[in-house]
């Protein structure tokens, strides 16, 4: 193959890896927004907590990959439900600004709490034997394959749950109307908790994969990745699950392209400028529907 094509294929592969991690986190943002119309700014830090659970399970319990992943997802889901029950539920009828501020505060709390317990960056032991294949110049590692396919698998599973099961039907119903759905016997509080658990669990899975791909973790790692995932959710139309997946791969692609042509410090600038322009021009994203305000 010619040099150019090899280079591009390599970049596309990198974009897919980055995009699938963004997508898993973006799903949590978009699900919570869809059901509560609230931006859960602490979600990026749940991802970070997931990475730290992965570190604990792999180092202190010495578990192999699959149990570590499972344990991390359960742990992150518990953190998500705890946040929802203790902090967001009492504020459900308060002004919306209160919920945003609480979420920001909770994010900072998770960061600094982890920092207080783990002051130095941690190294994740290699849980998987990393094999690299050379496909005509394009190098493909087993880790990349696992990250991409596992994320896609989880996304399809989520899509199935939301569109084909009773729980998913209840979620969509609550996002449609919050006044009459409880009258139909849908346990609203339970469904909201389940939504938070699923979103946080996916963020935990993303944390594990991120920690395996970039094995040095610190308490502030969730801030930037979290915001990027949030941008992905906005690109796809926040509240829309399929949109979040598409948005994540678009953002991953854009970021990889930027770092390919410019110094890597321009990456955040481009990502946030994209966000600014998008909100001014098309705030409902690619797949979202414009909402008109009625007087």
């Amino acid at each position: 193959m010619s040099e150019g094509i090899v280079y591009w294929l390599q970049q596309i592969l990198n974009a897919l890896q980055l995009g699938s991690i963004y997508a898993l986190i973006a799903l949590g943002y978009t699900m919570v927004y869809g059901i509560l119309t609230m931006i859960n700014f602490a979600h990026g830090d749940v991802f970070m907590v997931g990475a730290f659970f992965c570190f604990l399970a792999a180092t202190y319990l010495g578990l192999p990959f699959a149990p570590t992943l499972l344990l991390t997802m359960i742990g992150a889901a518990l953190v998500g439900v705890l946040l929802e029950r203790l902090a967001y539920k009492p504020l459900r009828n308060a002004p919306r600004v209160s919920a945003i501020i609480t979420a920001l505060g909770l994010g900072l709390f998770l960061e600094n709490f982890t920092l207080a317990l783990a002051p130095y960056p941690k190294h994740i032991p290699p849980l998987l034997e990393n094999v690299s294949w050379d496909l005509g110049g394009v190098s493909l590692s087993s880790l990349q394959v696992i990250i991409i396919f596992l994320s896609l698998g989880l996304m399809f599973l989520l899509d199935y749950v939301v569109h084909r099961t009773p729980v998913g039907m209840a979620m969509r119903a609550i996002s449609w109307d919050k006044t009459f759905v409880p009258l139909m016997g849908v346990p609203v509080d339970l469904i909201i908790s389940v939504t938070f658990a699923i979103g946080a669990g996916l963020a935990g899975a993303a944390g594990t994969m991120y920690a395996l791909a970039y094995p040095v973790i610190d308490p502030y790692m969730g801030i930037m990745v979290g915001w990027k995932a949030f941008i992905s959710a906005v690109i796809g139309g926040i509240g829309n699950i399929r949109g979040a997946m598409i948005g994540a791969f678009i953002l991953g692609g854009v970021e990889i392209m930027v770092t390919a042509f410019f110094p890597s410090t321009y990456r955040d600038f481009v990502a946030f400028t994209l966000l600014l322009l998008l909100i001014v021009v098309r705030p409902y994203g690619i797949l979202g529907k414009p909402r008109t305000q009625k007087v």
Partner: protein
Amino acid sequence: MNIALKYCWNELLEQAWLVPVLLLIGFGLAFAIPEYNWLNKYIQLVLMYIGINIILTVSLNLVNGYMGEFSLAHAGFMAVGAYTAALLTMKVLPVAAYPVLFPLAVLAGGMVAAVMGLIVAVPSFKIRGDYLAIITLAFLMIVKSVIENIDYIGGPRGIPGIKRLTTLPWVFFWTVATVWMIRNFVYSKYGRGVLSIREDEIASDLMSVNTKRVKFLAFMLSSFCAGVAGALFAHLLQFISPRVFDIIKTTDVLIMVYLGGIASIGGSILGATAYTALMELLRPSTMAALLDWLPEFVFNPLNQYIIQNLGVWRMVIMPLLLVLVMLYWPRGIMGQREFRGFIPRRDRVAHRRLNDPGEKP
């Protein structure tokens, strides 16, 4: 006796000379304290931080409290003001020879920040609520990464070696100026417009409030004050870098606004003072001095442990405080209430009736 005291107090508050006299005393103290070293250097520093935080809090309260929008961009405006002023005093103005030029640099910092405020103000004509919050966040991040990418102003390393030009009298002057400007704005025609936008934007548009102009002015005034605070902050800290002005700085100001209570200038002043003092109290060195002063047996076993770990845990306490305030004390110290002294004389009766509907007119 009690009644007589209350009567005297009320009479005192109505006197026209009260505010100028208080200001004069304040200015006198601000000049005298550093001149005669009445308080130690550390307390003087804390006083200056309190002043800067009052500027930040009162100006953010204009947007987040009175107007009911949610802005996260305050640290970004601060950064713009800080960098503008620092570059002016270091590269352009001969401040070493003429320290009198310092307020010019502060003013320029505020002006540039106000112009930057347009970037947020213009989208706010169409976009409200969560999405405007995201725009302000994007603005903050963009400012940070633009500064990081310009090598001339130090990039991610920042600017070291700024001259220490911020003094207690200057901080006092700018604090008073900010409170005066925002108080006058809030009780002016435009201030009523700001309040009506918070209640219902469409309705106030119908009532022929020029919402665009009101938002324009509110955002520009707020970011001007943030720029001034940034300029003062840079010349106090003597070192600035993009990391100083990140989302954590904004969160600090948000805590002070909501602790003090929204839509209240007096609350903002109290909130900023209380929070800054608390955070300084939780500093390991301050706590060590304080625990030393207590009788030995009280904290002795814990002493060493507390001092060693406080530095990290105070960063845990800070966001937890914000969440607890939001959950259990959403009004803050004086949400939507105001000291009588801040309310113009013509509005006082109406204000009292609003807060106490039972009173006969």
